[in-house]
């Protein structure tokens, strides 16, 4: 068991937590999200927010905010058919892939990790302090999409290109946009959120655009050849 401290909390107006925090404070939503994503008291207790799910300084509320955004950002959010775009079905993909969602301290090197059951290691997604406190709400949603894609069985398959800010030659890149990997899923979700996201703000959409463009520029061995207009 690790013990960690809440870092200085970034401005919650800017991160979107003061926008989404009140929205998640709804028993029906909490009940549903709790069940659909495999939360359990054991991993969200002891400071992570189980006793105060509406406190948007704590990890549980901040995670639920990402889930709220993921679920209600399409105009017709109830239309989650696979034939639609990822703004619609992203939520369905995430909840179908994530059965065990845990809050952990982490060691500071990652914000989340997907364990897809390989070598008998239990299937789960772990979220760390950086997820709760270094990411704004759209970035948290993107992380869930990214990790869900890993749970779907798609690992990264390439090394970062020479120009990448993630480190030239390091592993962890996707070979191309068409590989349909976790980077593509996350970037495409943010892109749609930027282009057509509802129940949100212009500033959060712009932040999503910046993040998606960064992924497009840096996370593929072959640059996709486009940028977000």
């Amino acid at each position, binding site marked *: *068991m690790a013990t960690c401290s*809440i*870092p*200085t909390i970034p401005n919650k*107006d*800017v*991160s979107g937590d*003061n*926008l989404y925090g*009140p929205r998640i404070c709804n028993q029906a939503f909490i009940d549903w999200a*709790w*069940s*659909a994503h495999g939360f359990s*008291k054991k991993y*969200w207790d002891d*400071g*992570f*927010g189980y*006793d*105060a*799910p*509406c*406190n948007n300084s704590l990890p*549980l509320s901040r995670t639920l905010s990402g889930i709220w955004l993921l679920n209600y950002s399409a105009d017709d*959010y109830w239309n*989650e058919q696979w034939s639609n*775009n*990822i703004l619609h*079905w992203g939520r369905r993909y995430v909840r*179908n*892939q994530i059965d065990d969602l845990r809050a952990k301290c982490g060691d*500071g*090197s*990652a*914000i*989340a990790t*997907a*364990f897809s059951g390989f070598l008998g290691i239990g299937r789960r997604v772990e979220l760390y302090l*950086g997820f709760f406190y*270094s990411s704004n709400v759209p970035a948290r949603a993107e992380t869930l999409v990214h990790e869900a894609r*890993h*749970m*779907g*069985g798609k*690992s990264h398959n390439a090394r970062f290109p*020479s120009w990448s*800010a*993630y480190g030239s030659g390091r592993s962890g890149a996707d070979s191309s946009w068409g590989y*349909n990997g976790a980077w593509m899923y996350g970037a*495409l979700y943010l892109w749609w959120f*930027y282009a057509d996201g509802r129940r949100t*703000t212009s*500033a959060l959409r712009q*932040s999503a655009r*910046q*993040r998606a463009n*960064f992924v497009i520029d*840096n996370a593929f061995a072959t640059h996709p*050849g486009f*940028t977000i207009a």
Partner: protein
Amino acid sequence: MDQTLSRGTGPEVDAADSLQPGRETIRVVLSPIGQRVLNYLSVINASGDDAEERYKEAVGAMREFAADAAAEIARMECGCRVRDYSGRWGLVYAASELHHPAALPYLRSVVMTPIPPEESADPHGFSTVAEETIVRTTAVDGVVQLAGQGHAEAIEALFGFLRMPSISIKRAAVQGLLNVRQGESLRGKIEAMLCPEERFLLDIRPLDVRRATQIDDPEADLSESGRIAQKATTPDLPGRTGCIDARATGDDSPAAGSGKEN
């Protein structure tokens, strides 16, 4: 991040962690202009029927004293913790929204400040360089906005950004330059400033997401357990009810009424 192949977690895998309260935040006294900036940040993501009106008022209050606001934003960002990426991003975005040439020196300085070396041991999982870059490309977009208004200094600044090592800063600057009036005529000058291996940036197309390659069959991308998962769909928002049974009963889900701190 997918570490199923690279990192086992050993016998501690099921252990729960503990999170302790952090230190109190120190409150600083702001100048009247600083208050206007802070007020802007407080409505940047506001909701409600009057959100747009409040936003317009707040941005108008900053623009009324644009030069002072730009200076104050610079001071405030300087006072931010380095790792307060969200707060720093908000301030850079505020400077961009001034739409005033007085913001140019600050925006330029943000972009031209060298990105500190990566602090993360696993940048794929979390990258300080990524966060720093996103702050800077937001500043580039602020300069692009000024360049689009025809400010020659902003155009010159964009050319200066082509010397920065970050591919994302260069990409944003190239796109900005090509989009100014008669930007296509700048193509030769841009090309001359880029290394041969970076000239692909001139061929990058701005794209609407509707024209991007999508995921044809996401259902096929599910794992076997994901395909057979039978989970309740999302509850309806107030105003749209009764279409789908979204009731879910979390055995031990927490009570919503507790811990409100918004």
